[in-house]
Every structure is written in structure tokens, then in C-alpha cells.
């Protein structure tokens, strides 16, 4: 390892974020190179200085009570009673009033950003014990469970007859809002289908892309936004998205 590499990695080393091989290499370099050792010592000293002296701003006394008072007693109950159409109306109103709520999705370039979020959420969901909050292939189990947690009534349908088995559902977080994530399986592959209502619910065609090796597709139908993501091959993925568009999105 040369000095340039060592200086690039010294922060990661101090933070304990390097893999074993890199750690050993930089350790060796620091033992032999006084100049880099000085840099290393400085990063370390600064870190302990910050942790010792920088202010950790604990929440002021009244804040807990203030936040608790502001929270609805029954989360989202009002919106749930309105159903997703009411939610869409509320969002449209908020947009009109320029409240900024839900505007993220409407900005140019937001789709790519959201696509990256979708892929990140997909990857996250595949990590241990995070795929499903409710594991069931029965849409009559999944649907009410999700409706009880979110403020809209989601379309849920098992597509097992067409080769895409519903495996369960989950709550997730995308574009600054809670969304429904339906989990489907095709052979060994997992498909995440994210759904949420959108104010400007004009129907749109399917737009798709490949990001970090994952296939991503989205469209809007009947006031609902659909995002699908999977490592499934493009043909089967496309077929799945078509099925969702034809069956799930219109079966509401």
C-alpha cells in the first residue's frame, strides 16, 4: 500500500470500517511510514476530541410532551376512514396550498431518485427477517392487515395461477411516506411491489429501467402508484408488471 492509498483509507481505518485485508495492509504501512502515522494520529485525536467535547443536544424537557400532544391519538384513523380517495383529495389540496406534502414525487428527476430508493428498499427487504410483516398467500389476510396499518385500502391479489405467488406484505417507507409492499415469488426470485395513492393520479404507461442489476418498473393507474423491483429476468419481470397492470390495478 502506498501513501496515497493509506491517506484515502485512514478515516475508514480509524472508524473500524475496513475489511480485514485492508486493515492489515494499512496497519503495516502506518508502522513503516511516519508521515501517514501523523495523519492517522490526528484523525484519531480529533475523533476523541469531538466525542469528549462536542455538545450532544439532548431533547429539551418539554419536547416529549409537546410531540406527544401533537401526535394523533389513533394514528391515521381519520385518513383511514376517508379511504384512499380522501387521502388523494387531501394530497391534492396540500399540493394546491403549496404545503410541500407529497411534492417529492412530482419534481423532475424525482423518479430516478425514487427508483434508487425502491432498489434500496428491495435490498433491505431481503436482509434477515425484514421481508414480510405478515406472511400469507391469502389476500384476505394480507389486505385487512395492511389496511389496518396504512391510511388507504390497497389492492391485493394473489397471482399464483399466473406463476407469481403472493408471499406476504409489509409496510415500508418510500418518498417520505409509508407505503404498502407486496411480496411475490417467482421460482427463487423475490419481487417487491410497492403501492400507494397519489394525488395527481393520471394514468401513465409503464416506465422501466435497470438499476444496480435490478429491474425496476413503475406506472400509475386509477390513482395508485405502482413500483415493482426484482432480480428476475427482464422477460418474466415484464410479464409480471403487465399482469399487475391488467389485473391488480384494475381489480380495485
Amino acid at each position, binding site marked *: 500500500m502506498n501513501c496515497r492509498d493509506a491517506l484515502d483509507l*485512514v478515516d475508514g481505518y480509524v472508524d473500524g470500517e475496513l475489511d480485514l485485508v485492508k486493515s492489515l495492509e494499512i496497519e503495516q504501512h502506518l508502522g513503516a511510514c511516519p508521515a501517514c502515522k501523523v495523519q492517522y494520529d*490526528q484523525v484519531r485525536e480529533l475523533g476523541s476530541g469531538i466525542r469528549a467535547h462536542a455538545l450532544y443536544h439532548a431533547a*429539551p424537557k418539554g*419536547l416529549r410532551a409537546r*410531540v406527544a400532544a*401533537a401526535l394523533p391519538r389513533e*394514528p391515521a384513523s381519520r385518513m383511514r376512514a376517508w379511504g384512499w380517495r380522501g387521502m388523494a383529495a387531501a394530497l391534492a389540496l396540500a399540493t394546491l396550498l403549496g404545503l410541500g406534502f407529497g411534492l417529492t414525487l412530482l419534481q423532475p428527476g424525482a423518479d430516478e*431518485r425514487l427508483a434508487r430508493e425502491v432498489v434500496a428498499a428491495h435490498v433491505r427487504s431481503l436482509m434477515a427477517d425484514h421481508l414480510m410483516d405478515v406472511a400469507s398467500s391469502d389476500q384476505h389476510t394480507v389486505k385487512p392487515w395492511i389496511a389496518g396499518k396504512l391510511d388507504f385500502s390497497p389492492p391485493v391479489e394473489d397471482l399464483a395461477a399466473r406463476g407469481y405467488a403472493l408471499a406476504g406484505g409489509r409496510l415500508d417507507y418510500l418518498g417520505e411516506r409509508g407505503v404498502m409492499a407486496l411480496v411475490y415469488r417467482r421460482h427463487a426470485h423475490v419481487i417487491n411491489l410497492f403501492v400507494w395513492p397519489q394525488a395527481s393520479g393520471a394514468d401513465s404507461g409503464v416506465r422501466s429501467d435497470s438499476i444496480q442489476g435490478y429491474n425496476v418498473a413503475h406506472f400509475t393507474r386509477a390513482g395508485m402508484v405502482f413500483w415493482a423491483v426484482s432480480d428476475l429476468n427482464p422477460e418474466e419481470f415484464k410479464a409480471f408488471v403487465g399482469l399487475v397492470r391488467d389485473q391488480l390495478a384494475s381489480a380495485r
Partner: protein
Amino acid sequence: MPHLDAAYNLARWLTRNEHDAEDVVQDAYLRAFRFFDGFRGDEGRAWLLTIVRHTCYSWLEKNRPAEVSAGFDEEAPAEERAGFDPDMMVAEGGNPEAIALQNAQRRILNQAIAELPLGFREVLILRELEDLSYKEIARVIDVPVGTVMSRLARARKLLRQSAPLRAMSGLPAAEVKP
């Protein structure tokens, strides 16, 4: 109400104002609890901090848009940054000298962190005060892990280059690559 201190600490460092931080935290919890029963555990903390950060940015873009991008240039040479006001070195009167000096140093350090551009400040706070891993930080601020490391390195370099901070610790200036 989990992670309230972490939420407030981040909001306070990003908005640099107590009242604004309280507003942001309240808003962030409203957003979070609208959809979830609450975030528990470390996973929940990183998640909540993501919402707090989003809320901070929305708030800043609306109220103090200049701060969002001010001074944040990952490529610019570090010496372009202005130093800190040496007046900050003045110790508070009435205290024993050592304590006064320490207080002054502490003040300088906090001032120096507070004056870091937003994009560098947030990684430093998330790492040093919230003790998040690079991976967690990457998720909170929505950048690749490699960017977290380089941004953090740069934040530390900027800090070390602030003149009063150097005087305080007796450290030589960070080496600046040509």
C-alpha cells in the same frame, strides 16, 4: 417515543437553532407516526434519523435555502475555507484559568463544527455523536458507502484546518493534497 434525543440532536446540529429543531422534530415524528407504530432498536433509529434529516432539509430549503448548498463542494481544495474568528479564543472571565481555557476550547470546537457546510456537518454528527456505521449513514443520507468515507474524511480535514482549532490542540495543519 423512541430516539427522541437522537432526533433532537441531529435536528439541532442541522438547523443550528433550538426552536427550529423542536419544530422539525415534532414534524418528523408526525410523519413517522402517521405510518408506523414507532421505530424500535437501532434499525428504527437510523430510519427515524432519515426522516428527521429529510424534514430538516425541507425546512431549510423553505426557510434558509442558502444554507443547504453553502460551502458544500466535495472537490474544492480545502484551504479555500475561511478561518474562524480568533476572538472566539477569548476565555470567559471569572473562572480559574484552566477551566476558562477548556470552556473556550469547547466553544471553539462546537463553533467550528456548527460552521461546517451542511453536507459535511451531517456525516460528522451521525458518525461521531450518533455512532452510526458507514452503511447506516449511507442509508440516512442516501449516498454510496464510499462517499460517506470520503465526505467524512473531508469534514475532519476542514475541521482540523480551522485556525483556532489548530491553536487549541497544537496540531499542525492537515496536509493538503495538491
